[in-house]
């Protein structure tokens, strides 16, 4: 099947656009707003890093982009088209998500990497190459995926998502189980895809150094709201809002503390 979405001209220059998007969960205690009035957009080929405290709504924001969760308020556009009007299989193939907890599907590593092409009836992806790209030794191809270490699973999950050849990549703490060096391999590979294939990336991370290294733009999310958005450089060098300054100060103290221990 011929297929080259990455070079196909898009009707909109914006890969992702949020317009007053919100998400409300209804529990026993009544409705609770997880995300409130999120607006902002990201151009093609840019890397956005999302930072903020745990439970701020970062993961929810990611899952609005491929409609694993539905915006209850407002709209989310991908390539200029509202997510709810996309053909779902195509939306989720092109907007790849690497989840926080990597889930291995039954079978070997090779089986896992073959799933995307099977789902979409596309030619089999090259497992060797996919593993090398994420810094894994291709010798693990025939190993049962469940037996891998946490860090290996995380990288197989990323490779599996990349097998779909997405043009937008959503990463939710995708390197949290990896050491600095392995995380560096992933970061460099993703940046390389950004340059070579004009991949657009939204990367949720707790690691501020990582957010700074990989991001072109950075948004700080707190309590379901985007409290500051701007270029990564400006965000870290000259934060505008009180909330961002406070967040960075607290994070710095935390990291200094971690360094002393």
């Amino acid at each position, binding site marked *: 099947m011929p297929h080259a979405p990455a070079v196909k001209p898009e009707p909109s220059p914006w890969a992702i656009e949020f317009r007053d998007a919100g998400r409300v969960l209804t529990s026993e205690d009544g409705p609770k707003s997880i995300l409130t009035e999120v607006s902002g957009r990201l151009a093609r080929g840019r890397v956005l890093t999302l930072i903020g405290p745990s439970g701020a709504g970062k993961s929810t924001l990611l899952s609005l982009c491929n409609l*694993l969760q*539905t915006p209850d308020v407002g709209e989310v556009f991908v390539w200029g088209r509202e997510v709810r009007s996309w053909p779902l299989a195509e939306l989720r193939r092109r907007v*790849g*998500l690497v989840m926080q907890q990597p889930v291995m*599907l*039954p079978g070997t590593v090779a089986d896992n990497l073959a799933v*995307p092409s099977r789902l979409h009836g596309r030619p089999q992806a090259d497992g060797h190459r996919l593993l090398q790209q994420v810094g894994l030794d291709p010798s693990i191809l025939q190993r049962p995926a469940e037996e891998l270490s946490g860090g290996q699973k995380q990288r197989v999950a990323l490779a599996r*998502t990349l097998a779909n050849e997405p043009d937008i990549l959503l990463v939710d703490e995708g390197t949290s189980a990896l050491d600095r060096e392995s995380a560096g391999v992933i970061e460099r590979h993703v940046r390389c895809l950004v340059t070579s294939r004009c991949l657009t990336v939204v990367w949720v991370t707790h690691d501020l150094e990582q957010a700074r290294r990989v991001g072109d733009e950075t948004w700080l999310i707190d309590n379901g709201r985007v409290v500051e958005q701007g270029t990564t450089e400006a965000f870290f060098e000259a934060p505008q809002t009180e909330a961002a300054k406070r967040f960075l100060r607290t994070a710095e103290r935390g990291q200094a503390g971690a360094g002393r221990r």
Partner: protein
Amino acid sequence: MSLWTLALTLAFVVAAMLVSLWQRLGLEKDMVVATIRATVQLLVIGYVLKFVFHMDNFALTAAMVALMTCVAADNAGRRGRGLAGRFWRPFAAIAAAEVLAQGFLLAVHVIPGRPSYIIPISGMIIGNSMVACGLFLNRLRDEARTRNAEVWALLALGANPKQASRAVVKAATKASMIPTIDSAKTMGLVQLPGMMTGQIIAGADPIQAVRYQLLIVFAIIASAAITSIVLGFLTYPRLFNRFWQLVV
């Protein structure tokens, strides 16, 4: 067996009630109700069957089978707790099993097309399909919950509901067929099946009784499979909403 000798067997119930009173189990009232219900229901069905057998009318036989299917579907639908809808999905699954299995038996003249054959055999097919439905629905929900992460991972890769729920439906189908297969494995070793026992007591040749029992065993294995597969096709979309998000 005369009514008088049947009445003597009520001594069993009286004995059980005495045990209940002595041990203060408080079950006497339930026993009376159960005894009366069983007696009335079976006597009524006996007369109904006698009438239907006597009429030997195809439409009447078909109506009787349809009624049995409805009762079974209603019962199975209750166990589905919303997953299968109230009625029509279990009905379609049970009816498919009954029509295919019974249709085959009639088409190749394994059994004569008389109500005295069709109705009891339908009863066994439908009853077994009903149990398979209940097991399938319970298991489908449980499997979807325990394999929740796997299903979401597949959805995130762009799987449609059918692709994302394949493993879940397969596990539920398997689980719903295991009791039927297990009982076939131990048949005759652990217990003599009710129909065969009845035929032997009524004076039939045990070899003939065994042949009919085997027919039933084969028919219910096939009907359990048909029921689960049809129900699987009809219910997997209900695990998802219109945006292909898992909702159980």
